[in-house]
C-alpha cells in the first residue's frame, strides 16, 4: 500500500507550499513528523504526524506478567525512563497493597532526580542545537554520561535500568556509591556557570528564544499542559509537591516559575529545576545513610502473582510533565488494561500545532525542543 495520495489535482495551491519536518529531520525530536504549510517563511498551518514509534505497549503489557512489564515500561520514554518504572511500580504496589520500605523510597527519589537531571541536560543540548550552537550539546551529553555511569554501576544498564520493581528496588546501593553520587553532583554544579556562559546568558540563544512560541496560562490550562511548560506560564503546579508520592513531602524544594510562557521561559524553568534536583539529591545523599532497613517489601512468587481486582491511577512528575498510569486488574496474573498518559501527548500534538502556526520556519525546531516533546510517549 502506498501511504499518500499520488493523484494530481488540476491546480496546485499557489502562494503556499509544504515542508515536512521529519520523521527524518535534524530539527525534530526523535522519529516524529510535523507537516508544515508555509507562506514565505511563515507557518500558516501545521499538522503533527505520529505513530512512527508505535509499538503497541498497552497491548503488549496485557499479554505479559505483572513483573515482566517492568522491563517494558522504561522504553516508553527513552531519555527519561526512571519515572516510567516508578510510576508503574507505584500502581502495582497500590493494587497489591504493598508497603514500600522507606529506604527503597529514598533510593527511588534519588534515581528519579538523577534521571531528571540527565533528561534536562539532554534537552538543553538539543535546544541549543536548534539555534546552531552545538557546544552545549557536546558538553551536556558528555556530562549526562556521568549520570549514566552512576546508573550503570547501580543497575548494569546505562539507559534502561529495570531497577525499580514492585515492592522496592532490586538491590542495595554499592559501597561508596553515595560518595560518587555526591562527587558527580559537585561536578555538575561546578559546570552550571559554564552552561550559563555558554547558553543561558548567550545572546544568540536568548534572542532566538525570547518571544517564540508564547503560551499564556489560560491556553496552557485549556490545553492540559503540565510540567515545566505549565510552570513557564506562571502556575506553580508540580505533582511532587501537590500530589506527593514516595517521600517527596519530606524534602525541601521549590517549584520554579516563570511568567512569560515563551521558549526562553521554558528553558529557564528547566535550568532552575536542574538546581532544585541537585538540592533534592543533596538532601537524599545526606539522609540516606541514616535510613536503614529492607530495600524491598516481600512479594509473592512473581511468576504466579495474581493482583486483586481493582484499578488505580498513579501520577509522577517526569521531566516532561505529569506522567500517569491507569492500571486495571481483573484479578489475574497480567494487567487487564494499562493506560499510559505520557506528558508529551498533550504538548507534542495539540499545543505544538497551535504554537507553530504563525511562527517562522526557523523557529519551529526551537519551539519543538523548548516544549521538550518526547515522541515515544505519544506513540507508545
Amino acid at each position, binding site marked *: *500500500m502506498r*501511504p499518500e495520495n499520488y493523484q494530481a489535482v488540476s491546480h496546485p495551491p499557489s502562494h503556499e507550499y509544504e515542508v515536512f519536518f521529519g520523521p527524518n529531520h535534524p530539527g525534530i525530536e526523535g522519529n516524529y513528523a510535523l507537516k508544515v504549510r508555509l507562506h514565505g517563511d511563515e507557518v500558516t498551518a501545521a499538522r*503533527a*504526524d*505520529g*505513530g512512527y514509534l*508505535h509499538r*503497541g505497549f*498497552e*497491548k*503488549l503489557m496485557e*499479554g505479559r506478567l505483572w513483573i515482566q512489564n517492568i522491563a517494558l515500561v522504561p522504553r516508553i520514554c527513552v531519555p527519561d525512563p526512571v519515572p516510567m518504572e516508578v510510576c508503574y511500580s507505584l500502581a502495582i504496589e*497500590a493494587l497489591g497493597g504493598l508497603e514500600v520500605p522507606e529506604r527503597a523510597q529514598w533510593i527511588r527519589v534519588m534515581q528519579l532526580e538523577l534521571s531528571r537531571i540527565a533528561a534536562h541536560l539532554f534537552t538543553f543540548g538539543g535546544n541549543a542545537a536548534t539555534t546552531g550552537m552545538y557546544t552545549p550539546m557536546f558538553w551536556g551529553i558528555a556530562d549526562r554520561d556521568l549520570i549514566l555511569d552512576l546508573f550503570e554501576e547501580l543497575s548494569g544498564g546505562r539507559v534502561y535500568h529495570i531497577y525499580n520493581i514492585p515492592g522496592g528496588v532490586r538491590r542495595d546501593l554499592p559501597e561508596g556509591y553515595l560518595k560518587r553520587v555526591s562527587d558527580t553532583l559537585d561536578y555538575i554544579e561546578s559546570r552550571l556557570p559554564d552552561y550559563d556562559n555558554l547558553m543561558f546568558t548567550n545572546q544568540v540563544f536568548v534572542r532566538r528564544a525570547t518571544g517564540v512560541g508564547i503560551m499564556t496560562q489560560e491556553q496552557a*490550562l*485549556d*490545553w*492540559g499542559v*503540565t510540567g515545566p511548560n505549565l510552570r513557564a506560564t506562571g*502556575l506553580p*503546579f508540580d505533582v511532587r*509537591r*501537590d*500530589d*506527593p508520592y514516595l517521600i517527596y*513531602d519530606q524534602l525541601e524544594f521549590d517549584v520554579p516559575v516563570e511568567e512569560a510562557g515563551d521558549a526562553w521561559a521554558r528553558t529557564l524553568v528547566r535550568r532552575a529545576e536542574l538546581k532544585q534536583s541537585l538540592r533534592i539529591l543533596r538532601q537524599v545523599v545526606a539522609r540516606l545513610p541514616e535510613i536503614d532497613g529492607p530495600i524491598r517489601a516481600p512479594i509473592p512468587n512473581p511468576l504466579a502473582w495474581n493482583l486483586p481486582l481493582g*484499578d*488505580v*491511577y498513579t*501520577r509522577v512528575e517526569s521531566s516532561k510533565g*505529569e506522567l*500517569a498510569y*491507569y492500571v*486495571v486488574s481483573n484479578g*489475574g*496474573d497480567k494487567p*487487564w*488494561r494499562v*493506560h499510559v*498518559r505520557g506528558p508529551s*501527548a*498533550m504538548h507534542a*500534538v*495539540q499545543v505544538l500545532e497551535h504554537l507553530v502556526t504563525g511562527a517562522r520556519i526557523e523557529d519551529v525546531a526551537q519551539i519543538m525542543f523548548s516544549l521538550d516533546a518526547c515522541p515515544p510517549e*505519544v*506513540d*507508545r
Partner: protein
Amino acid sequence: MTPTDAPGHDVTTTLDFLLQEVDGLRTRWVAPRRLRVDLPAETLPALLELLKGRAGYVHLSAISCVDWPDDGQFELVYHTWSYELNVLVMAHIRIPRDPGVYLSIYDLYRPAAFFERDIHEMFGLWFEGSPDMGKFILTEWEGPPPMRKEFDGEAWVMEQFGWQEYRPEWLTEIEAKGGGISKRPEQLRGDKGEDGTA
C-alpha cells in the same frame, strides 16, 4: 491550605456536598486524594460541568478506556484534577460495546480531543462532536482496532511474520547435555490460552 497536606475534612465535605447535586452517583474515596465516582453515562457531562464550574476542575488528566468484552461494555474513565482542591476525581462510566458511541467532552476540555482520537483509533469507539476523529498513530494500519480484547496481537504476529527458528550451536550443545529450553514457545502460548480462559 498547604499543598502537601492530605485534603482536610473541609475539602472532602465540600466535594461530597457538591456531588450530591448530580443524581445517580456513587462516590468512594479510594485514597486520600483520589475520589472515585461511578455514574450512568448520560449524567457525565453534567458532572464534569459541575466540577469544572464549581470546584476548579480545569485539568483533564486523561481519559482511559477499558474493554470488558464479557459484560459487552466499554468503561470510560475521566481523570480530572483540580488545581485548587488538589483532588483527583475519576469518573467511571460504562457504555454498551455494540454501537460504541459516546459524546465528546471537547467543548469542556480541549485535551479530550487527543484522548478521544486515541481511543477511537485503539478501540474503535466513536465520539460525537469530537473535532478530529482522523487517525494519528495507526494511519497505515488496516486491521481491526488493536486494543480490543478480541484482537489477538500475538496470533496476528504469528500469521504475519512466522516464528523464527533460533537454534545456535551453543544451544544444541546445551540440549545435548540435557539442558536448554524446557517448554517450546508453542507450548507456552498454548498454556497461556488456557490460563486466559480460566
